[in-house]
């Protein structure tokens, strides 16, 4: 405004040549535009940085180094009675199996003409401790194998695995009490004999969590099942309750104090910090109602309460976008109000409702903080049973499992955590793409 009144002499202004004031204003304009562009670019750059950081740390979790060895299963050690009864054989603990793997590795080395100065024990450190338990489970499941020599593919220990992923080097091995350069040499020799391979890590998706010292064996099996159960509960509870609440508020609720109270509550619940819902779950569902800790049922209930506002807000928007003429036409033909809503408005609003529900589920899937408080951080190795009983069994959830991984000191768990995040993000991507597809395909513009 000041510009318009600024005294500019008649002869001074030129359309071709900018005077200094105009030049200054145009420069300011350009600068301002640049700030805006820079802000957008910073935002996108942060996204790229975040994704690359996770990918570069996590992709290697999908690959795993294994060693192929021949293991002899002597009858006198594993099944003295000779009855091949798994219950009797189960008396031999993992301590009985550990020497078998050690001898198997020595034999494999000899067969392939690999020489090493390492003692048998140090050489056996190449193999993950978890493999002993795996071998035991395998033999108990297949007792007829006893007395034979079988090829076994065992997990390489975390450090050897790290060596082939660039995390461990000869320099770092010098300083590391868990691995020596000689062991790395042996690993290289095994690789030369084509016995040590790096392949796709299917176990990462199916295996349960492993102890702090065995990062190579840690997987997401229990966490994926736990998350799936919770999503099932959220879907079964939040969708019907959310839709019912929205229908009432949008179609039937009179303008009064009670309706106002509900509306205020919903908008506030949408902004309550998620950890507060965790406190609610701990106090009400666990301490008061006596539901078990770490169970998907409690997690599902807490996440349901968290997701409800999202679903209600989406459903109401979707109901609102159905034009009143639809209701009028139904009412005009003699339908009751309830019939008009359930037979005509609701089906038309369904795509929007489903989109909102999926987005709500995606939010719930990534939520961590409330689950920490209801005990889902526990170390769980047992797969929960099938529903409905399994809903009360201890389980973990994907985001909580990631948090668990980050709390362990072995750097190999950083890789596992990042890998788990990639899995989580993939699930979220699929859900969001489904939501976008539903919206594009079915949404009607009136």
């Amino acid at each position, binding site marked *: 405004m000041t510009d318009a009144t600024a005294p500019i002499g008649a002869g001074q202004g030129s359309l071709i040549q900018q005077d200094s004031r105009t030049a200054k204003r145009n420069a300011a304009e350009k600068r*301002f535009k640049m700030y805006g562009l820079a802000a957008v670019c910073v935002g996108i750059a942060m*996204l790229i940085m975040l994704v690359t950081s996770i990918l570069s740390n996590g992709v290697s979790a999908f690959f795993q180094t294994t060693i192929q060895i021949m293991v002899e299963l002597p009858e006198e050690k594993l099944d003295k009675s000779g009855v091949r009864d798994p219950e009797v054989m189960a008396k031999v603990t993992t301590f009985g199996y550990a020497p078998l793997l050690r001898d198997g590795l020595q034999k494999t080395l000899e067969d392939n003409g690999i020489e090493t100065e390492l003692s048998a024990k140090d050489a056996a450190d190449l193999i993950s401790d978890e493999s002993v338990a795996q071998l035991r489970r395998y033999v108990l499941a297949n007792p007829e194998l006893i007395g034979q020599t079988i090829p076994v593919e065992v997990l390489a220990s975390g450090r050897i695995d790290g060596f082939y992923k660039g995390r461990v080097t000869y320099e770092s091995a010098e300083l590391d009490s868990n691995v020596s350069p000689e062991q790395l040499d042996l690993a290289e020799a095994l690789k030369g004999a084509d016995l040590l391979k790096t392949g796709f890590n299917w176990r990462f998706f199916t295996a349960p969590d492993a102890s702090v010292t065995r990062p190579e064996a840690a997987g997401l099996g229990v966490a994926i099942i736990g998350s799936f159960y919770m999503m099932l509960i959220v879907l079964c509870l939040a969708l019907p309750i959310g839709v019912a609440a929205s229908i009432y*508020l949008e179609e039937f609720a009179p303008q009064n104090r009670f309706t106002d109270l509900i509306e205020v509550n919903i908008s506030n619940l949408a902004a309550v910090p998620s950890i*507060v819902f965790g406190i609610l779950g701990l106090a009400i569902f666990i301490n*008061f109602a006596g539901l078990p800790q770490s169970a998907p049922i409690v997690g599902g209930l807490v996440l349901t309460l968290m997701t*409800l506002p999202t679903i209600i807000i989406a459903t109401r928007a979707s109901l609102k976008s159905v034009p009143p003429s639809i209701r009028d036409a139904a009412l005009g033909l003699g339908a009751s109000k309830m019939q008009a809503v359930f037979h005509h408005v609701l089906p038309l609003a369904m795509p929007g409702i489903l989109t909102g529900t999926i987005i709500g589920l995606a939010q719930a899937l990534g939520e961590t903080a409330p689950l920490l408080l209801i005990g889902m951080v526990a170390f769980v190795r047992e797969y929960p049973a099938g529903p409905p009983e399994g809903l009360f069994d201890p389980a973990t959830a994907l*985001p909580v499992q990631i948090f668990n991984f980050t709390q362990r000191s072995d750097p190999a768990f950083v890789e596992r955590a990042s890998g788990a995040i990639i899995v989580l*993000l993939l699930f979220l991507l699929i859900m969001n793409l489904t939501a976008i597809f539903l919206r594009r395909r079915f949404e009607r513009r009136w």
Partner: protein
Amino acid sequence: MSLPMILLALAVLGTVSFILSRKRAIASVGGDARRLHSLPTYYGMHGLLMAMIPAAGLLVAWLVIQPLMLERSIAADFPESAIPEGSTIGLVMSDVRRVADALDRVADQGALAGRSLEELEAVIADGGTAMGADLSDALLTAANDYRAARGSLNMIMLVAVFAVGLIGAAWAWKRSEGEFRARNVVETGVLILLVAAASIAILTTLGIVLSMLFETMNFFQQYDWKRFFLSATWDPSFSGRGGGSELGIIPLLWGTLYISLIALIVSVPIGLFAAIYLSEYAGKKFRSIAKPLIEILAGIPTIVYGLFALITVGPMLRDAIASPLGLGSSASSVMTAGLVMGIMLIPFVSSLSDDIINAVPQAMRDGSLGLGATQSETIKQVIIPAALPGIVGAVLLAASRAIGETMIVVLGAGAAAKLDLNPFEAMTTVTVKIVSQLTGDTDFASPETLVAFALGLTLFVITLGLNVLALYIVRKYREQYE
């Protein structure tokens, strides 16, 4: 009979009732459905609702009330002398419950009779039950009483629930005749269900407030509230070593506010400028790519940001800035958590500001441009002032998000409660301490655990206040232009 089985049985009862009521209604008018008041389905629905809803309501009420009453009566019978030193009746009762559950599990295998206390203890431990105290005779008696009472009460509940279901079904069946206005009754029933669903929002808020208020009051009975709000040290001693904990909220609040401040300093300018550029300058094509990309940031779970802070941003800040300048040697710091939280809030601020900027009437822009102002002058002198209340609201909402955020600070900020100005120092927040006091072994009689509820309530009140204020400002502003 387990809960899912009861629900399944109720559903079967409902279905049978549906079929029978519908049949009777049609039969009552000689098979001519036109002579019925409502469509035949409504008579069936009436039967279904009458059979299931009252029975399900009774079931829920029973499940809530029974444990309360039962525990109270068992606790009253429990000998005062048998409560171990330093324990309370509440803790003993939770042991009683655990023992009872464990015994139930063992009893299924028929291996209970005639065992000694030690043997039973081993059996219970084998079942994976951790106990707060040793098994005593009084405890075992109480647990057995508990089991017996629970067993018979469950039986009574089962009978009562199905009796109510059958009576409802019979009542509905009897009423299903031509003149009966089934549709009106069913629609009233459905409306009641809808109202009940809508009330869950109120119940949730009530649950949050009551659960925290109750435990907070417990806390303030054991710990002076003035010390909690005014003490500048946070130094909980772990239970077992006796009292002497210093539980002052001030260092936690300071950490929370400091981190939130940094987060806002990062996110508000970036978010605001991004929103301005996208809504006022960007071409359609650029906007359609850049906007969803920025919004992806909002869909990423906070645990991902937490890990990003822990493995990338934290070490980077330490090696690039903090260590060379001698400001600190910790990867987790206020700066780390603040920066990453700022990134998380960018899309939040930008999409809120975008809505608000778009709500400014086009006529105001046109007027300013028509008078010869450049676009940036229009934005700075017309649009921003007009949108200011809304933007303030958006910033307040972002602040409330930042204060309540948990995972980023758990992984990025550290655990040491400190009152310090150096942003490269590890500090802690209210949410971090809620997590650390409530995970692991918790003892709901000690102030060290209960303080988490007081912290939670404080957090809830602060964020609620900010939200209400923000919504009030935004709503008031919106009305201006409508």
